[in-house]
């Protein structure tokens, strides 16, 4: 290697054209979408543009910029959102440029959570495209002095059939500049869609396959410090002492700073700890190990998940608070069956851990770059942390290396912002995997008690469901002692069972860790319990699981939990527009069992299991085929998954979400478990918190989308809930053993 010229990092970057990815990113994704700035892309030849609304900007070089105000975390929204706008606008797919929007209320809701991007915004996006189209038509009509009614938009241009004239969108910018922004416009007919309903290639495909995609962890700013934070093992504890000198002695360390103490309730605030700031990530992580922090573990020091499990089960075995009642669930029955189901704490564990970069500008304002699911919440949290007005905070949204709910909590962004101000330099905070698993916002542990009463003909006449879990509300308010609010929506109050007597109760549970949400939230354990217990009933009755499941769902009808006193908010949507339709639920059961060849002769040791669940306004049925050998080796051979999500925008991404949900659900079924000892989460990395790998993945995941012109339902989350019960039911079919606790590895299965 002699003759190699020594180069410093900055010179290297310059020479290799890789000039600090973060800066390039900031220019193309960040500065270009400053609120109210004229949006111009990096390669733009445009000299003028006009914005019909906040989502669309038409440049006079013919490019239509589309602002994606939702975060990309693998669901493909940076492709499907432009599909909707471009379709309604009659813009050509190869003449659009997608720009990631900053966090700003002018875009409306940006919280990329609850599978809402399409289901809540479909009409808004269509309107954005349709009004832009109408503006182009008005501009052309004015240019030609003809009535707008005589003009039509098609293929990125406006046409006047009578005179045979056409003008491209780019050439209409000047004429449109002084036009009023139309507020509403007629939507295209379904049969005229060009992009909606078509499988379009992911627009980020090149970035994803060349390493060019910029995630939260990839931001680099000039003069930036790299931070790593040592946090108390138990939530809410504080540092008593630590060896600052030893940490400072590590080469590359620039500063050691004690973080603000945790608050109660935690909200999205920084949670204490000791931060190391260094010239690179590795130095910061090494110095953490030298701190030797002595902790006061605080109020949760005695928390132990083993004894907590006993407590939860006890809580669910006694009457709780009734939240829904139909008839008399205690009515005399010929015989009763009951069971208790338990599921543990889970971590979202996105492959990219939480990471954020912040810079304080000379005027005191703050700019951050972060993998956030909710840039407006991040903006508010940073403003609150720094005592700024939110107008002084700019949140640039990077790509997210997975989210699964973790990245809708902006605590890590607040950490970066706070440290940037303390140090006076830009700071990137990167969580280690251990930080992510141990110090996150955990998905709730839960215990559920079910009791069903049957008449002499084995028909189910009563149903009691009690649920007990520490509530997400405990993260935001003091004194929360049990399930509440929207959590009751999640597979609890909307039970589809056709049973004349039903009661649903919630039971007490107090939180000792920060409770958050994970892909499909409480639906994970409610579907696991309900669909497993229904299968148990089938077996006690000697019935076929599928036939019995359909019988439990009953005839096609619309359910309104309010009829039985349930306070149900239907994922924020009108029941009239999005009814709880048992006919659609049965239809996905019929379809998915047909796909799986339900009833066919299976090899020895194999079993099929079925489950179905409505969540986030979509209906998903799943079938798993498993086998188990004498050593407890459980193999999931194939999974079939069928969704009715109403109208879908990009079928390929919907299939992909179902495939991914099958693997995510398998991780929950087979492996997922966090435990706590003396207040601290025991697991720390993918060795102790395993997730499904390629060698465990099914040979095939078969997916199907039901044809429907119903309004769109959710897609990202609904595929998850039926997977674990389908596998548990399949395991029963294969082995005759009923497992009522997750994960299955605790039942001796590998």
């Amino acid at each position, binding site marked *: *290697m002699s003759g*190699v010229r*020594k*180069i410093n*990092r900055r010179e*290297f970057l310059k*020479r*290799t054209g*890789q000039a600090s990815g973060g800066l390039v990113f900031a220019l193309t994704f960040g500065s270009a979408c400053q609120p109210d700035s004229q949006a111009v892309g990096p390669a733009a030849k445009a000299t003028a543009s006009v914005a019909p609304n906040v989502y669309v900007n038409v440049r006079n070089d013919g490019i239509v910029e589309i602002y994606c105000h939702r975060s*990309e975390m*693998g669901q*493909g929204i940076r492709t499907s959102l432009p599909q909707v706008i471009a379709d309604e606008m009659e813009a050509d797919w190869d003449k659009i440029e997608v720009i990631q929007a900053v966090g700003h209320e002018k875009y409306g809701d940006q919280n990329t959570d609850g599978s809402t991007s399409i289901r809540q915004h479909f009409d808004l996006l269509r309107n954005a495209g349709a009004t832009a189209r109408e503006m182009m038509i008005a501009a052309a009509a004015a240019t030609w002095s003809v009535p707008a009614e005589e003009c039509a938009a098609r293929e990125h241009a406006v046409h006047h059939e009578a005179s045979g004239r056409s003008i491209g969108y780019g050439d209409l910018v000047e004429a449109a500049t002084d036009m009023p922004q139309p507020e509403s416009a007629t939507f295209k007919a379904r049969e005229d869609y060009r992009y909606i309903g078509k499988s379009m*290639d*992911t627009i980020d*495909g*090149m*970035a*994803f*396959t*060349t*390493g*060019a*995609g910029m*995630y939260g962890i*990839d931001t*680099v700013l000039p003069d930036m410090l790299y931070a790593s934070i040592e946090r108390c093992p138990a939530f809410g504890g504080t540092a008593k002492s630590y060896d600052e000198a030893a940490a400072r002695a590590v080469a*590359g360390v620039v500063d050691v700073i004690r973080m603000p103490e945790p608050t109660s309730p935690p909200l999205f605030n920084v949670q204490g700890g000791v931060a190391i700031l260094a010239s*690179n*990530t*590795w*130095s910061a992580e090494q110095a953490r190990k030298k701190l030797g922090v002595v902790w006061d573990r605080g109020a949760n020091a005695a928390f132990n998940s083993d004894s907590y499990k006993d407590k939860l089960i006890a809580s669910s075995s006694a009457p709780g608070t009734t939240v829904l009642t139909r008839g008399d669930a205690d009515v005399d029955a010929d015989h009763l069956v009951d069971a208790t189901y338990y599921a543990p704490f889970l971590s979202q564990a*996105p*492959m*990219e*851990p939480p990471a954020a970069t912040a810079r304080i500008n000379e005027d005191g304002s703050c700019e951050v770059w972060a993998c956030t699911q909710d840039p407006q919440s991040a903006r508010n949290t940073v403003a609150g942390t720094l005592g700024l007005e939110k107008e002084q905070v700019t949140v640039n949204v990077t*790509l997210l*290396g*997975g*989210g*699964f709910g973790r990245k809708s909590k902006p605590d890590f962004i607040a950490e970066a912002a706070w440290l940037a101000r303390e140090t006076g330099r830009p700071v990137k905070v*990167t969580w280690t*995997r251990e930080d992510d698993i141990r110090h996150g916002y955990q998905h709730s542990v839960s215990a559920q008690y079910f009791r069903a009463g049957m008449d002499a003909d084995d028909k189910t006449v009563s149903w009691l469901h009690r649920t007990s879990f520490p509530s997400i509300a405990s993260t935001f308010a003091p004194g929360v002692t049990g399930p509440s609010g929207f959590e009751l929506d999640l597979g609890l109050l909307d039970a589809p069972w056709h049973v004349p007597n039903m009661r649903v109760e919630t039971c007490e549970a107090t939180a000792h860790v920060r409770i958050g949400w994970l892909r499909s939230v409480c639906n994970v354990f409610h579907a696991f319990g309900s669909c497993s217990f229904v299968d148990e009933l089938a077996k006690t009755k000697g019935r076929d699981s599928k036939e019995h499941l359909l019988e439990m769902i009953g005839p096609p009808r619309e359910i309104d939990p309010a009829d039985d006193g349930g306070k149900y908010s239907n994922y924020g949507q009108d029941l009239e527009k999005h009814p709880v339709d048992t006919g659609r639920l049965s239809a996905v059961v019929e379809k998915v069992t047909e796909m799986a060849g339900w009833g066919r002769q299976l090899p020895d040791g194999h079993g099929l299991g079925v489950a179905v669940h409505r969540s986030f306004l979509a209906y998903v049925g799943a079938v798993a085929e498993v086998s188990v050998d004498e050593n407890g080796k459980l193999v999931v051979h194939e999974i079939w998954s069928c969704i009715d999500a109403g109208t879908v925008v990009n079928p*390929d991404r919907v299939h*992909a*979400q179902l*495939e*991914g*949900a*099958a693997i*995510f659900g398998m991780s929950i079924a087979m492996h997922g478990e966090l435990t706590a000892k003396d207040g601290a989460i025991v697991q720390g*990395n*993918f*060795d102790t918190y395993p997730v*499904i*790998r*390629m*060698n465990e*993945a099914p040979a*095939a*995941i078969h997916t199907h989308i039901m044809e429907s012109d119903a309004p769109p339902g959710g897609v990202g989350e609904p595929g998850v809930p039926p997977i674990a019960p389908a596998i548990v039911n399949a395991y029963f079919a294969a082995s005759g053993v009923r497992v009522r606790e997750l994960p299955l590895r605790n039942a001796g299965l590998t």
Partner: protein
Amino acid sequence: MAVEFELNGEAVSLDIDPTMPLLWAIRDMAGLTGTKYACGKALCGSCNVHIDGQPVRSCAVPASVAAGRKITTIEGLSEEGSHPVQVAWRKLNVAQCGYCQSGQIMSAVALLERIPNPTDEDIDAAMSGNICRCGTYTRIREAIHLAAEDQS
């Protein structure tokens, strides 16, 4: 001290602690961010790079191991993403969030260099060190078969 190696065909000399994992040397010091951190313990494969053509988890080898050798990262795999594996990945829209895919692709390229026409079993054996939390495994299998066809 300086650690000198060839990075995507470019000679580099990094003034670093030689025990710094190659991952952080590549990301923080050389400024190539396509190689990802996700576990730091050689458990997930997101940080896979090639050293003299062999796949290596860069989070678990000190930078000194790279001294005098040729390192290839995802950025150096091909001009403009033209490697058959990258092309196959795009044809099948394998990636969801994309974060682990640099490592997946580097593992797949190494597999196909070793076994040009792998079976599903070969793929499972070679790729099980790479975690994808989005769950793209079945498409990865398919894409590797497609790349194998395209290469032959």
